[in-house]
């Protein structure tokens, strides 16, 4: 018997779902194995995971809240991935966004919310964009590999945040804990509670609105504008783009700037709406989850939204595992890595078909 590998004519419709589900099952199996390795119940652990993630209304709501920053960061990196610019720096851009928002909140705390919040959004997006533009400029001017430079800026960005929170921004009344003082009311993104009642939904905050707006802008930009089409063409590679006289350099700056701004916005929303102050715990790796989400969703906006929610739900489930089974939080990372690896391998079957064939008598077995 010999294996015949050949390229498929067209993407199989239902096949995509089969491949993704198969990959997901394989990844879950792998994770269950890791649980056994650590001496934890495998099936019981996964049960707690799913129960914690999807079992109750409040866990779904929690997932929705966590999905907001993941979705925004993911749109940002997906924009860059579309033209094969490997922006791994969402985490650092998120950190700078949080810093920018905090700067505005602490400096202009006396302003009313209608002025202060836009100012925070602006400064957060500007700093995030700046953090994204550094690797872009280095890449265009000097040919510096953007994967490593954007990743290194993650570490630097987080340390900038820590420097400020441990230093000049530390609240004197915090008993030495590294955190700023609580933002004035005008700098906190409000809860929808007032209009949705005091029930569960009341926990949702207005930052959620940023998601449909950003998603819509992403779709319109890519599908309806000239620059968007040019961007897609640049995905074929730099040489092709330059040969076709596309504005390659400008587009690199644009996607890295916009990507940084989106991650910065996520940092602003997370700081203002979820914590109400800046502290190092704002950094929980959403920027890295966003990369996993973008790739799993094949860079398309609706799948990004769905996948962001799914991975946010997994994070909620892992919290339940932490509480009930004392499983370290890193289990979430293992799952994200395993799912991405399995889906990557599975995508092979979308591009190629593999068949077993008996060698013809004239053929020598190879």
């Amino acid at each position, binding site marked *: 018997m010999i294996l*015949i*590998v*050949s*390229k498929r004519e067209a993407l199989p419709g239902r096949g995509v779902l089969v491949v993704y589900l198969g990959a997901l099952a394989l990844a879950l199996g792998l994770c269950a194995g*890791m649980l056994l*390795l*650590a001496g934890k119940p495998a099936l019981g652990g996964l049960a707690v995971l799913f129960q914690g993630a999807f079992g109750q209304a409040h866990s779904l709501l929690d997932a929705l809240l966590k999905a907001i920053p993941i979705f925004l960061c993911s749109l940002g990196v997906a924009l860059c991935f579309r033209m094969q610019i*490997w922006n*791994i720096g969402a985490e650092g851009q998120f950190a700078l966004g949080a810093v920018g928002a905090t700067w505005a909140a602490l400096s202009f705390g006396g302003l009313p919310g209608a002025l202060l919040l836009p100012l925070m959004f602006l400064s957060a997006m500007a700093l995030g964009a700046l953090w994204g533009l550094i690797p872009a400029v*280095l890449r265009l001017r*000097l*040919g*510096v*590999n953007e*994967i*490593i*430079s954007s*990743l*290194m*800026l993650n*570490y*630097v960005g987080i*340390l*900038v945040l*820590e*420097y400020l929170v*441990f*230093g000049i921004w530390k609240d004197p009344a915090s008993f030495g804990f590294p955190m700023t003082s609580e933002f004035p009311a005008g700098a906190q993104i409000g809860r929808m509670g007032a209009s949705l009642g005091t029930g569960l939904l009341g926990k949702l905050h207005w930052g959620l609105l940023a998601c449909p707006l950003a998603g819509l802008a992403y779709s319109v930009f890519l599908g309806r504008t000239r620059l968007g089409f040019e961007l897609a063409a640049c995905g074929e590679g730099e040489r092709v783009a330059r040969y076709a006289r596309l504005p390659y350099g400008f587009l690199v700056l644009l996607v890295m700037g916009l990507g940084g701004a989106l991650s910065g916005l996520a940092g602003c929303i997370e700081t203002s709406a979820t914590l109400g102050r800046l502290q190092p715990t704002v950094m929980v790796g959403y920027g*890295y989850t966003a*990369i*996993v989400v973008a*790739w799993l969703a094949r860079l398309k906006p609706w799948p990004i939204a769905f996948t962001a929610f799914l991975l946010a739900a997994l994070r909620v489930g892992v919290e339940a595992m932490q509480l009930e089974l004392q*499983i*370290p*939080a*890193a*289990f*979430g*990372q*293992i799952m*994200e*890595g*395993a799912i*991405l*690896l399995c889906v*990557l*391998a*599975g*995508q*092979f079957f979308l*591009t*190629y078909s593999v068949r077993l064939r008996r060698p013809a008598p004239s053929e020598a077995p190879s």
Partner: protein
Amino acid sequence: MSPELVVALLAATVQAGTPILFATLGEIISERAGVLNLGVEGCMALASFAGFLVCHQTGSAWLGLAAGGCAGALLAGLHGLVCQVFLGNQVVSGLALTIFGVGLCNFLGTPYVGQATVGFQQFAVPALSELPLLGAVFFRQDALVYLSYLTPVAVWFLLWRTSLGLGLRAAGEMPAAAAAAGLNPLRLRFLGVLLGGFLCGLGGAYLSLAHTHLWTTSLSGGRGWVAVALVIFAFWRPGRAVAGAYLFGGIMAFQLRLQASGTNVPSSLLLMLPYVLTVLVLVLSAARARSAHGRGSAAPAALGVNIEPEG
């Protein structure tokens, strides 16, 4: 600065540079064979735990080292499987590998945080350690550091003086030509990835067995990424990797020494140094690669490009 302090700082430079050197050499082999492995950080992290665990259970540092190397190779093999056999994107697969490896290290390692190991101890090499300055800096170290002096030579010999090395490089430059010459580029690439992962694993094991004798999670702390950057700095050559690794060893040792001396420079600014330096080093090597008209400083031609199946 007193002469004793300079010697201590240089000796610490060699120690801090050693794990980075192993990992950089590993990534050079992998990339020379055409496979970009961005999972170095994950390989190092997992290997640091595997090394600790085996040493902790058996009491043998050498078994721990072997376990670290194997863990690194195993994880790198996963990368090879995903992107060589299943033709996944090498960048994304490597990133996934780092997320997976670092996660696994922290997941399995959390119950052991704070446990001590014996690991490797320093010993003076007879005669050589009596050399003025050099003796104290280079020859009063542990066995792994001595091993790291030989590794660059071994990697150079493998890549440029053996037919296997020629095959590996051919698989990275032009796999079709390698196949036409009767070699199996896929198998060669896989071998390159495994060897590279093994060396990254040695670097990771060094962290838990010799660098600190106390287990904590996240020991790798970005060193894997520094190694990926240093491969570019080294122009994919083992000799220059030594210089790069000790440069970073120096900045890390300096930064630690400064923190320990109770300076009033905030630690977050000191901790930034290696990461900022990485970006600077990339800028410098990019400028140099351009001025030298790319001669001898370019990446392997088929780096990051998967071998498409025929038909």
